[in-house]
């Protein structure tokens, strides 16, 4: 989030827009996981899987603890081990080394030994999709002694939930919110919490209108009382809650300065639980 804000601020500086007013819009999707259409998300994932076979390789990353060398030498250090697994479309032994070397700088490891398990697990595309459809379409839940099937939405609390939600909303953004890719707007999203920062007031209003209208195809429906803007605006005849007198804008436990986009932690909301 910090990196994206910093980049956005630099873009504004180079465009000479650093002193122009920034419009902030925050919206919150109601029960995001519970309202994602099961058929829609399964179609999306089927279209994303590009390979017929996937090879899943497990490996262990061994490294000294972060505090190594910081203390005097008579402390005994235990190496840290992390168990990872990664998918690949390449079954050859060299694929793993290549994948590690091709990692982006932020996920590179230093002082680390990689130990892989040589023989990868092989899964067919159809197996992956079948497992997914069992998980989404036939999630069985027990309450008391009775069994229930989840007929709406995607299961919560699974390793897949937030990834699925992100991919799905990514599709929504690409389809309906691409007007925001004008270099003068920044759209952030943490699962179901959207924040738009833009120099273009029309974009801000248009974004609000789209979000407040909702989208049944993507199961998107906004909680209007949870929206927040920093300019006076009416959507569908209702006034959107406004943050007046230029106070820092709250988003996901962080306060954003409305002028220079500086951020700091929001202690007031973390004390009261601060659901974001």
């Amino acid at each position, binding site marked *: 989030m910090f990196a994206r804000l910093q980049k956005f601020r630099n873009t504004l500086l180079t465009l000479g827009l650093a002193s122009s007013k920034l419009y902030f819009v925050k919206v919150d999707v109601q029960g995001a996981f519970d309202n994602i259409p099961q058929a829609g998300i399964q179609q999306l994932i089927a279209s994303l899987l590009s390979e017929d076979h996937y090879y899943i390789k497990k490996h262990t990353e061994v490294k000294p603890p972060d505090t190594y060398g910081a203390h005097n030498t008579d402390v005994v250090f235990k190496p840290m081990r992390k168990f990872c697994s990664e998918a690949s479309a390449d079954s050859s032994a060299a694929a793993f080394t290549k994948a590690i070397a091709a990692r982006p700088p932020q996920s590179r490891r230093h002082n680390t030994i990689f130990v892989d398990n040589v023989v990868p697990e092989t899964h067919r595309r159809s197996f992956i999709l079948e497992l997914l459809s069992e998980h989404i379409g036939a999630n069985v839940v027990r309450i008391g002694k009775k069994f229930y099937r989840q007929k709406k939405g995607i299961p919560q609390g699974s*390793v897949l939930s937030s990834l699925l939600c992100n*991919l799905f909303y990514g599709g929504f953004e690409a389809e309906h919110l691409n007007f925001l890719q004008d270099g003068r707007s920044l759209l952030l999203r943490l699962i179901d919490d959207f924040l738009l920062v833009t120099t273009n007031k029309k974009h801000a209003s248009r974004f609000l209108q789209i979000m407040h209208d909702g989208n049944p195809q993507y199961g998107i429906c906004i909680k209007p009382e949870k929206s927040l803007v920093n300019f006076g605006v009416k959507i569908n005849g209702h006034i959107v809650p406004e943050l007046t007198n230029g106070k820092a804008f709250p988003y996901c436990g962080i306060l954003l300065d409305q002028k220079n986009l500086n951020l700091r932690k929001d202690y007031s909301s973390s004390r009261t*639980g601060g659901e974001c």
Partner: protein
Amino acid sequence: MSDHKKRREILAELIYYILDSFLIPLIRSNFHVTESSQHRNRLLYFRHDLWRRLTEPALSNLKTSMLEEMPHNLATSKLSRRALGFSQIRLLPKAKGMRPIANLKRRAQILRNGRVTLGRSINSVLAPVFNVLKYEKVRMAQSCLEHPS
């Protein structure tokens, strides 16, 4: 073994007994203990009758809007044929109402060859799907960087 060591061992066993077989069952039989999304590190104690009355509306709402009942034999036959098990839902109190939470890390106890063993958790069964999706996500992000539209 030294006298001191034995004494310590006995004390440790006593503490274990008090917690495991006395205190926890005692609290459990009288209260439903839960965390909440309102307070970070606070435990809430509800009397069982009160908890049942509080959760009843949220549960019946869940059962009609999000879930549909499965006949017991259909559910068990379906579950026995697939790797994914079932999950149990618990309710967390919020400022207004309840938030359902399913624990998919939990490993169900299953009977295999007359012995009770731990099955695989839903999340561990789903691991390959997760890895594949992550792989496709990284690939998409890379192709976006290489060929910006």
